């Protein structure tokens, strides 16, 4: 009857409006946190730079083989660490990181490797749990503001697995899947082989005084390397987590912005429809009155 469709449209407009408020709030929250996340990435940079420099200094001066830099041939088990988010509402962020992880797992399995999965972030954890895939380790820590302690814990677990004997589930490689923060509009999933370490990456800083000075090592080159490499892994994992957090927030902001726009479009459409319905009701009422009056006059 008249008024029925109008009421339905009004209800839809109202619910879309309240959804729009939610999206808008999420967008603003993400936007305000991005700055902080990027600031933290920048704040962690000096540590990473210092460690990388030191590692390269040791590596160029000593020919020491360290367990963390040598390939393991006694096991075909490999570890994959997936760094995902705790919450959704971030567009395709979770989906694309999980897809990338699946691709890596498939590739490694095709190479005859046995993959043990480590996941951070509730989205990844619940994805693998739902499919009854065994997780060797999982952490949910508030993925949009990772702490150095959690990164240390994750790194220690993985280093432990890498150094463990093959019989006790030791792994021969560690791959990390995370989302690289290219810029505010582009974040892409990236896979890094973390262990065994290749100390080539970003080490030869070109342009600087080419010959590194002859260092004294205390207590010994091996001792320094022993202390440095785990720290290096820890700081790399921490920086991956920070970058993933910045990416998550950026995709959330973008997704929520789009959602707000869509909500506005919907509201506009429904308003048009509601107006049309009202006009139709009025026209109908008028024609009823007119035809009623005509009928009375004719009789």
């Amino acid at each position, binding site marked *: 009857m008249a008024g029925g469709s109008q009421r339905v449209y009004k209800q839809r407009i109202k619910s879309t409006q309240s959804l729009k408020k939610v999206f808008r709030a999420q967008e603003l929250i993400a936007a305000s946190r991005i700055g902080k996340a990027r*600031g*933290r990435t*920048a*704040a*962690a940079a*000096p*540590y990473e730079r*210092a*460690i990388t*420099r*030191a590692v390269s*200094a*040791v590596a160029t001066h000593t020919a020491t083989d360290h367990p963390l830099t040598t390939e393991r041939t006694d096991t075909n088990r490999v570890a994959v660490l997936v760094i995902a988010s705790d919450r959704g509402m971030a567009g395709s962020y979770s989906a694309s990181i999980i897809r990338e992880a699946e691709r890596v797992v498939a590739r490694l399995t095709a190479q005859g490797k046995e993959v043990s999965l480590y996941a951070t972030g509730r989205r990844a954890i619940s994805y693998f749990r739902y499919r009854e895939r065994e997780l060797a380790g999982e952490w949910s820590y508030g993925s949009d503001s990772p*702490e*150095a302690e959690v*990164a*240390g814990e994750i790194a220690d677990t993985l280093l432990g697995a890498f150094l463990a004997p093959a019989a006790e589930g030791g792994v021969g490689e560690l791959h990390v899947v995370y989302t690289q923060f290219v810029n505010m509009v582009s974040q892409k999933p990236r896979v890094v082989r973390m262990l065994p370490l290749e100390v080539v990456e970003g080490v030869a800083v070109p342009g600087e005084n080419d010959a590194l*000075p*002859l*260092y*004294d*090592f*205390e*207590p010994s080159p091996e*001792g*320094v390397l022993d*202390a*440095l490499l785990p*720290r290096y892994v*820890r*700081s790399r994992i*921490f920086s991956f987590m920070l970058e993933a957090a910045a990416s998550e927030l950026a995709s959330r902001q973008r997704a929520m912005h789009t959602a707000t726009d869509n909500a506005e479009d919907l509201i506009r459409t429904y308003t048009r429809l509601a107006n049309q319905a009202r006009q139709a009701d009025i026209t109908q009422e008028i024609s009823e009155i007119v035809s009623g009056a005509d009928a009375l006059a004719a009789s």
Partner: protein
Amino acid sequence: MAELNVDLVAADRKVWSGAAREVSAPSADGQIGILAGHTPLLAVLRPGTIKVSTAPREVAVEVQVDGGFLSVDDDVVTIVVDSITEVSGRESTLA
């Protein structure tokens, strides 16, 4: 007199940075003091106290650390620490 250029960094932030006269740190073999012109050094740190002085008897920053390492290279001192338990003195805050 030549000065040291000191950076004291923790995993998630820069703790202190600036010019200093002397750095004292707990290396694996014992507490070491570093003045300008020190030979290049890479040392592992034990738990202990790091002191950075800008002038004789004027400690700019003093922190308790759990471990870390220290590198000296051409009067640039970089101290990397895992975690800081206690800080006294000026801590430079990063915006």
